[in-house]
């Protein structure tokens, strides 16, 4: 099977500090890949390099079979329409209601009539169990609600790939479990591929197909959760048995 995301020899740095060091990973269609590692090991930097919020120093990134590393912005925008990103703090636009936030990609990237866009927004809100929150402003939502609203916006265009930066961090166990179940459901319904950065072990156990373990900017392990737990690498052992 061809990977849906292929990263080769990626090096990224902030000024002189190397954050990602000659890193290579593959993500396969319809899998849930978890990027794991200690704080500051480069997980979020990797994610932001893949979606080109940061530009790498060297290496290549392929998404959906296309090299996007130095792709023209117009071309890359077409790829972005097939990608959803769930940011750590939601990143909802504070000046817009939740419904308006979700409608942004639908209004900008489809030719759907307004009545259908309104229906789709309600559909997404229902999916994330925020049926009555459409008219609220992000500042009126709790942390968990904000994350779910952000997820609704991220999946507005039914993306092929969903990137999530700590989607369940800071949520209570019940809400976190519900969010995980929702991610699994979306993967099944939309044949979505998920790349998730998280520290939450319970969440990893619920959703992970494959673990990509980073340490100081390098991949030190790729494999299933069970294989990771049995790994002899001390960093990984300490992570699962602190």
């Amino acid at each position, binding site marked *: 099977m061809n990977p849906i995301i292929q990263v080769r020899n990626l090096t990224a740095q902030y000024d002189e500090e190397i954050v990602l060091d000659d890193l290579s990973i593959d993500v396969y269609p319809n899998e849930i890949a978890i990027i794991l590692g200690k704080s500051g090991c480069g997980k979020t930097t990797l994610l932001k390099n893949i979606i080109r919020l940061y530009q790498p120093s060297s290496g290549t990134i392929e998404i959906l079979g296309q090299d996007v590393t130095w792709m023209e912005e117009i071309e890359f925008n077409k790829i972005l329409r097939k990608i959803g990103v769930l940011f750590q703090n939601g990143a909802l636009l*504070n*000046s817009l209601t939740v419904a308006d936030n979700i409608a942004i990609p639908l209004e900008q990237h*489809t*030719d*759907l*009539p307004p*009545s*259908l866009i309104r*229906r*789709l927004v*309600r*559909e*997404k809100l*229902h*999916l994330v169990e925020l*049926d009555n929150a*459409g*008219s609220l*402003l*992000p*500042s009126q939502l709790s942390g968990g609600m904000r994350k779910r609203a952000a997820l609704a916006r991220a*999946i507005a*265009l*039914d993306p092929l790939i969903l990137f999530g930066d700590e989607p369940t961090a800071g949520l209570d166990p019940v809400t976190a479990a519900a969010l995980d179940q929702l991610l699994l*459901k979306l993967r099944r*319904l*939309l044949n979505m591929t998920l790349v998730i950065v998280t520290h939450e072990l319970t969440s990893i156990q619920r959703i992970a197909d494959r673990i990509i373990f980073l340490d100081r900017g390098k991949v030190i392990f790729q494999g299933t959760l069970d294989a990771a737990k049995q790994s002899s690498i001390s960093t990984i052992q300490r992570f699962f048995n602190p």
Partner: protein
Amino acid sequence: MAEISIQKNIIYLSGELEVPSIRSILEQVKNAMTSNDVPQIIFDLSELTKIDSAGVALLDEIKARFSAPDRSIQFLNTPPQIQEAIVSFSIVDLPAESAAIRKSFFESIGERVYKTITNSGDLLFLIADIFYWSIIGLFRRKGQREGSFIQQSVLIGVNAFAIVGLISFLIGFILALQSAAQLRQFGANIFIADLIGIAMLKEMGPMMTAIVVAGRSGSAIASEIATMVVTEEIDALKTMSLNPIRYVVVPKFHGITLTMPLLTVFSDFLGILGGFIIGITYLQLSATAFLNELVTVLILKDVLTGLFKSVIFAWIIIIVACYFGLKVTGGSEGVGKATTASVVASIFFVIVADSILGLIFYFNQPIY
């Protein structure tokens, strides 16, 4: 892409019912519905291979828009994987969105009056708090960060010297230039010194300084405090048993109270300098004559009036900035609104205060 074919009252949908084909399918269904008045329309979905959430929304929309008492719409032969997506995404069985409750005219007025009274009360409490802690802060430094008074004085005062100086110079220069042509007609060139001296010291100096400081430092103070509220820094101070007014506001209050009169003196000086240049160049006055006239016409009370005004303006700017900063609601949007409101209100209240003080001093001024 999805395909549509219509045979009598049966509409066959096939292929991938996804975003790119939704609009054209909806148009074709609309045409079919208007030209077909049979009591039952059947959609055969057996050939659908894929559906996304927009496809499900389309089916919901068709049902909602074209169902009628005399016409039923049915979706038949749905493949299992399509059925699962429909069940997961569809919102057709949900209750309709409730309309927002509209307030009556009198309710709106009542709410505004109530809010105004509450806000006025809050403002009075804030003013009392600021003055109380500022006076306490003069004698007891505990509860304030070491060096914060100097830091704020530099930020509000020293860093504003250049812009205040430049604007005041240009104001004095323009004021003198516009007046010079009129005075010349009457051979009253020498009175340019009186005009510039009195205008700068009593009005333009304090006023221009206040407007620059309100735009520059007032906005910075409002946005800083609003950000601290939004990011819970103010709450954190409270939990550390620190009074936010004392810790955050008082150093700014002391800083602006000290630096505004100094900035005003600087503004007066540069404004007069602007007028002086016009006097000795355009009106061909001698420097000695200009300065002699200036010294003759100005009295100490004029200087003190300007300085008194500058202190009042400083307090207006800091109180308004703190009020809007502390009352912020919402996230980054709220911070922006608080900052804008603070600057507009500061300038408005500075001008109102200037008018009131102008009237008070007018009835107490000596006759030249």
